[in-house]
């Protein structure tokens, strides 16, 4: 009897801890991944959205201007795959880069290595930004 009562309480606690799956909870991280900062903008967090868009997009563009290496999906090597995961985090920026055939295939000078890191980190920061948009959508963050 006591066990069934405690089991019921724990399932209630789990239900209370699970955030509600709303349209915004799905849309915000998806849009935020595709366009950096857009997940915040569609939730009317204007300042945060603009700052995220400015930071991530500028970092990605600087990486391209420094002739950073853009990783391809079929890298083969494990480090190339990790680089691709980082790059693809930039969402629409990465897709646009692939469509327009921007970026360098191989690193040709010293600062191009910085460019490669800028591209990867811009993508990783966008993943964090999309996760933050989700937390706002489910009410975990104001």
């Amino acid at each position, binding site marked *: 009897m006591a066990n069934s009562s405690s089991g019921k309480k724990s399932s209630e606690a789990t239900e209370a801890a699970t955030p509600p799956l709303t349209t915004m909870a799905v849309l915000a991280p998806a849009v935020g991944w595709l366009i950096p900062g857009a997940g915040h903008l569609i939730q009317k967090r204007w300042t*945060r959205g603009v*700052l*995220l868009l*400015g*930071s*991530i997009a*500028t*970092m990605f563009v*600087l990486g391209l*201007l*420094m*002739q950073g290496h853009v990783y391809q999906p079929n890298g083969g090597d494990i480090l190339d795959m990790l680089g691709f995961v980082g790059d693809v985090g930039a969402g629409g920026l990465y897709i646009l880069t692939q469509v327009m055939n921007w970026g360098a295939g191989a690193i040709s*000078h010293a*600062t191009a290595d*910085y*460019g490669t*890191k*800028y591209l990867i*980190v*811009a993508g990783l*920061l966008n993943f*964090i*930004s999309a*996760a*933050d948009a989700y937390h706002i959508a489910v009410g975990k*963050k*104001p």
Partner: protein
Amino acid sequence: MILTLSHFSAAVLFAVFASVVFGITQRSTSREQFRYGLYCFAMFVGGVFVAGWVMWFLRR
């Protein structure tokens, strides 16, 4: 167009953008976000100087 930055300017620019994103995403209120962003920036740039001096001593 090829952008050529020095090692230091590339590291400082990196610190600026990463700190902005960390500040916004890791804290809730505007004040906390600003303070945490500044803290991250100081840690990034401080880390650059520390790493620079460590490499200088290793090279001697």
